[in-house]
């Protein structure tokens, strides 16, 4: 191997840029874990913000109603669920107005459904970036989460209006809401990471994610109270981690629920922790292959 110093035009070598300190050395080899991943995520923190900002900005470009679509979607869904479950099926409402019962559940549900879909499509949707530029890949599903958190906050405003309309004031329990949002986010992000990484390699998971979202609406207590589930089936029903999250939201927003099923919430927390930890592990394990398989 020839190691030759360049001759004339490399006079610059003798005068390196002022203030240019020799940077840290990085080693790249097969299967090596980069110990500075967190540091790097921090370095790229602005990209989180920019990708989310791009997606929010772009989503409603060339639409007349713009961001109002979030409201329209929420209100129409609310009306349909209220009419179908409250009026037609005449399910019990645990003593609160039926629209409030439904909307308190729609908040976490729509967040979950939107974020899971966006996460699982996020890597493929940004495939050109991933195959051409390096950045910590975790940013891509991460910013999909941020976009959905923004939608979530808009829905929270709708909730406030709806509470005011019904003259319903929440009590101290509402203070638990941030914790429940964190639980919903952890659960969704964990599942989203699995789906994102799997979709990058096997596009089948895009359909599976759609399926989960479609069926999930029926097997989660969104349009009805989970008190309609017989007592001895509650534990089994709570294996759907969204049951605990949705019940929690109702408990926090609607001044508690008559017979709150605490084991359900515990199961949700356990599943969320498990999903998040395993999702991070699987994502980190496969992310180095994304550029090759996408």
């Amino acid at each position, binding site marked *: 191997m020839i190691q030759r110093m360049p001759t004339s035009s490399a006079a610059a070598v003798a005068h390196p*840029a002022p203030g240019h300190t020799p940077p840290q050395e990085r080693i790249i080899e097969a299967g090596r874990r980069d110990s500075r991943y967190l540091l790097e995520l921090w370095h790229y923190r602005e990209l989180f913000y920019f990708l989310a900002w791009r997606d929010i900005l772009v989503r409603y470009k060339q639409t007349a109603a713009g961001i109002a679509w979030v409201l329209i979607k929420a209100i129409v869904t609310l009306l349909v669920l209220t009419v179908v479950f409250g009026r037609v099926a005449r399910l019990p409402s645990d003593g609160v107005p039926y629209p409030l019962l439904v909307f308190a559940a729609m908040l976490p549900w729509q967040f979950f459904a939107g974020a899971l879909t966006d996460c699982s499509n996020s890597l493929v949707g940004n495939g050109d970036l991933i195959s051409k530029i390096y950045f910590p890949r975790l940013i891509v599903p991460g910013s999909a989460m941020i976009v959905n958190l923004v939608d979530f906050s808009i829905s929270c405003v709708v909730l406030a209006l709806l509470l005011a309309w019904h003259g319903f004031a929440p009590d101290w329990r509402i203070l638990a809401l941030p914790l429940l949002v964190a639980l919903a986010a952890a659960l969704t992000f964990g599942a989203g990471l699995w789906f994102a990484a799997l979709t990058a390699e096997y596009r089948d998971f895009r359909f599976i994610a759609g399926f989960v979202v479609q069926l999930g609406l029926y097997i989660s207590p969104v349009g009805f109270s989970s008190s309609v589930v017989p007592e001895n089936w509650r534990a089994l029903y709570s294996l759907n981690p969204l049951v605990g999250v949705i019940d929690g939201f109702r408990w926090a927003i609607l001044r508690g629920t008559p017979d709150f099923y605490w084991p359900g919430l515990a199961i949700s927390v356990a599943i969320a922790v498990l999903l998040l930890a395993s999702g991070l592990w699987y994502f980190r394990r496969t992310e180095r292959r994304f550029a090759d398989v996408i």
Partner: protein
Amino acid sequence: MPDVVLNAEGLGKHYLLRHRIAGYDTLREKISENLRRLTAARRPPPGPREAALEEFWALRDVSMQIRQGEVVALIGRNGAGKSTLLKIISRITEPTAGRLRIRGRAASLLEVGTGFHPELTGRENIFLNGAILGMPKTEIRAKFDQIVAFAEVAQFLDTPVKRYSSGMYVRLAFSIAAHLEPDILIVDEVLAVGDAPFQKKCLERMSEVAAMGRTILFVSHNLGLVRSMCRRGILLENGRIVCDDLVEVTVARYLEGLEAVASSNLLERPQRRGTGRVRLSRLDIRDTNHAIKSSVEAGQALQFVFHTTGRLPALTCSFTIYDSVGQAITCFDSALQCDPDPANNADVPPFVCELGELFLTPGRYRINAALYCQDELLDHVESAAILDVDPGVARARPVVATPGYGSVFMPHRWMGPC
């Protein structure tokens, strides 16, 4: 050695290829598909598209050291492994073998405009793209005016880039990338874009970056540019480094290699695509007296003679002529038969393509050739032959080299006030 910024030891990258035996990505197939639509002839459906797994080392045992401030050219034919090496250096993909030590941040101009969003305005895209390339917001803000001035898009900052002309788009994209200050800058064939004044500006910017003591890895098929920009050249062939020396030495070696492969038996070429049911065995260039020639005068008649390992009823042959910087000049396809073509004769080699007059300006040309059977690609050989064109006379008019001003001569006459 304190000033080594990039040190590769035995780097390798290995892919499992699952390729469709019948591809659908060549010009020839597009043409035949269009013709079929024109004639609307009924055809049997295409055969089963099988998948085959092939193990492929895109990069093998690559070791090199690059020092702070060096401007190094990576040279090699398409598929030699240049892009794979750059992708490993810029951390997009991981090597399968070996180790790479990098001091500092490597940023690549692999594809300018990656991450541009068509719906966003120029201003928004500058911030977005800067963030994607790893520039902090404060740095982008500080360089914003420079970027805009360099790209010459000041009036269109608040227009969505989807309404930009392609020239503006590329200028803006390059401008953002050019204002990055990475420790190692990777430039991959991006200077082929934009008009001449902008290219000149890009080159000046690269020299500036180099003068700041930054390291540059430069990939281009434009050998003149490579020679003027770089001191050192690394030649890659089939994923291995075959030459690492002064750029003149490497370029000469590269050109030699192109000629050497051109003169050898085509069956010995390892790098080829296609199913291989029939292969190209030889490509000769002859004059009309059937004498094999290595160079031909402009304006003369010549024949391209393609020998194959067998014959099939629907076998067709196509080839493309490229100029010295890799630009396709013209292509020929035996599937496009017309009346004056004589019927196949068992005595001649499968394919002879005769040009009555060679309308190319003097210079060196490369020929890629392929065999097809209906939609099936049987064989594809890069640089199947080198064609050297000498100055000559066509239609009583001298044909001379016009470097940089095209390579095709058109029969013409001048009428003027005499």
